[in-house]
């Protein structure tokens, strides 16, 4: 809600400024128009019926284009889910075409470098190959950031955390100006759901710590260390049970959908609804919303629903 209020205020200010400085020329009027356009932008875009890449093209345009999130010369880190040595059809990893498309949009917006990283659970090289993301990174011009050793992670204190007061975060997260979470919507046996926030667990070195300290709390705490600037939730093929690995075609439902939002909590809330879960019933979504990282009440959001 904060952001919308902020935008409204900015719009009002812009208008006021435009009126005040009218004799000075058109500048005020332009910024007013821009502010009005920004205020009209949706908080969340939900798309269905297209390919993962096509839905992203449409959705990011509705949110104001990638230039809204990535400025010229900035460094971007993309965090897909590529933890599993399983093929795309079984749905545990982000579709490679989507990862490639997000990389390309960032580069087109003028990004200096686009990293792709994930501390994979199964052997990294097999997962990179089986998911198809290794090839997608290469073809799209992104840079694969090695994530399979403690040396790639740096100690970080997480201020205000309830459980995860210190952790090791991947070096590219500290180096990059912009972070984009590109998860795939999945059931998760322990956390309930695995969407934009649970995806960020792959940014730390010590996973076991999350489980021993408290999984739900740590997932929410990570946002204090680094909140993604944009979350792109793929829901084309969704592992609806036995998640997050799945591994059997019986576990997969074809949803052909996608959720895009700058608010990771809102993205998680919408994703949870698609898995027939109440967002407030999922520990980490509730905790993150309570900590003020976003809105879990979808009725309070401006949602753009698009069928391709």
């Amino acid at each position, binding site marked *: 809600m904060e952001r919308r209020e902020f935008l409204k205020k900015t719009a009002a200010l812009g208008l006021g400024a435009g009126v005040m400085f009218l004799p000075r020329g058109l500048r005020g009027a332009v910024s007013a128009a821009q502010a009005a356009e920004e205020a009209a932008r949706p908080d969340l875009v939900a798309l*269905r019926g297209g390919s993962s890449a096509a839905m992203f093209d449409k959705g990011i345009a509705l949110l104001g284009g990638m230039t809204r999130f990535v400025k010229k010369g900035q460094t971007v880190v993309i965090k897909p889910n590529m933890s599993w040595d399983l093929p795309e059809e079984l749905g545990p990893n982000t579709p490679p075409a989507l990862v490639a498309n997000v990389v390309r949009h960032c580069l087109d917006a003028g990004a200096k470098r686009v990293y792709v990283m994930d501390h994979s659970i199964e052997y990294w090289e097999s997962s990179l190959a089986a998911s198809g993301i290794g090839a997608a990174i290469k073809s799209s011009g992104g840079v694969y950031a090695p994530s399979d050793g403690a040396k790639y992670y740096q100690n970080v204190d997480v201020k205000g955390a309830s459980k995860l007061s210190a952790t090791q975060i991947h070096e590219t997260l500290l180096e990059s100006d912009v972070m984009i979470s590109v998860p795939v919507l999945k059931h998760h046996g*322990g956390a309930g759901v695995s969407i934009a926030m649970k995806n960020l667990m792959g940014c730390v070195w010590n996973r076991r710590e999350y489980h021993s300290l*408290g999984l739900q709390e740590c997932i929410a705490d990570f946002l204090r260390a680094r909140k993604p600037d944009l979350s792109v939730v793929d829901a084309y093929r969704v592992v609806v049970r036995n998640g997050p690995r799945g591994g059997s075609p*019986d576990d997969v439902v074809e*949803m052909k959908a996608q959720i895009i939002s700058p608010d990771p909590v809102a993205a998680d809330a919408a994703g949870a609804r698609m898995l*027939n879960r109440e967002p407030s019933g*999922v520990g980490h979504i509730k905790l993150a919303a309570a900590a003020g990282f976003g809105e879990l009440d979808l009725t309070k959001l401006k949602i753009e629903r698009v069928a391709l």
Partner: protein
Amino acid sequence: MDKNRKRILYRGLSWGRFLAALGILVLFIMCYLGYSRVFYDVSVNDNLLWRLTRSQITVGLIALDSVVFLLIFLVSIIAGRWYCSVLCPFGSLQETVWRVARFFKSKIFKKRYRYISPSALRYIVPTLAGVGLAFSLPYLFIPLSPLGSFGRGVRTLYVLAIDGISSLTLMMSISLMFFAFVLVLAAMRGRRFCDWCPAGILLGVCANAAPMRIRLDEERCVLCGSCEYVCPMNCVDLKNKTLDNDRCVLCMSCAAACPKGALSYGMPKPKERESRRAFLRDSSGILAFLSSCVYVGGATLSAISTAREREEHKIAAAGEGFQHPILQDLPIAPPGADNAKNFLSHCIGCQACAAVCPAEVIRFNSESGLHPRLDYTKGYCQYNCKSCLDVCPTDALRDMSIEEKHITRIGISFLNHSRCVVVTKGQSCGACAEVCPTHALRMAPLGNNPSLTAPVFDPEYCIGCGGCFNVCPAEPRAFVVSGVHVQTQTPGIRPSDDNNEELFKAGDDFPF
């Protein structure tokens, strides 16, 4: 041929041969130091060490791969011990050490190498190895295998460098001491291990009958001693103006060093043909022949009995119903070991499996002795990987399809709910079910709280990969993974519970 041109020719041959052997040695060492994965193409499940181990004679003998064995046998019976000359990494390592030592020796000590007469070890060692193989006595043949001794030495050094001196176990130090002993011997006196290597003796018997061999022209020889000095096998006997063709590894150094062109490699002249048939006439030749027969016989017996047992094992494993075993802490063997007897009677402890394992769970530690065992504290067996059984040169790990590996139970897990963090702390976890590739573990609601789920374990589907143990956050962990006496097959992935939940699917309106 002019003697100078001849010398240049043999010098080229000699260096070309040594560089080829050195190249293979370097590739072997790189693979053992973990670099096989640099050349590892995951998509085709192929790696360099796999190709290298395929060329070893152990593949032909113990694994009964007749193509490899016949090829090496044919080459040896026609042209001599080329296998020992180029392909064997342990031989090349000894020769390299010897060459380096000789370089310094010639500067400092000016000590000369002389002919060393064959010792009785050359009959004893192959006999022991053959008996060990025939009667499944692993500790009798494991230390005598050239590939095994080489692999253990290099890998032990690697493990010490990575894990520190504290990881040194009794078996590791014995392996290391033997490795060091052979290399010190090599520095002082050349390729001594090759003199009693069971495979070397066998190929030596072939080489003794081979028409292509190094010959010494007694008329041209002026007894200058150059050849004696450069021979890594110390098999040139100038006192009698002869050389032991069964020990010669065709390094060509002698021919390259001879100033008179008295040594040459090739077919014998007609009048010499008679003498080469004499290879069985003297006692030394007969003993070598008999001991190699024991070796080959033992290896064949072992291979045949294992093949038969594996057939029986297959029938037994298929008919066996699942019974949850009581908790035992048996060591876990890699997939394809089938049962303890097959595994122990074939493994030469070469550690190739440990070198290729991407998860680095195959270990040689105090529990395992000289055989590989799985240790899940730092990783777990990867579901879609079968590198270890691909690379195994002796078939101690039977090759199988990845689909068969998916349902092969190498161990079994035991869940102790009273240690699980969901139960003890009331917090969400699910790490075990997350990694469980067969859904033997799944999460089900615990008590009245619908959002708190605890693991439920169905051991029938457990393949013993150790994922649950590896990721479990509880201290001590809520899982124990034990090995099994016999590797059996599981029904595969546990079918999902019927779930009629109405979910969003393609074409629906968004549920928000």
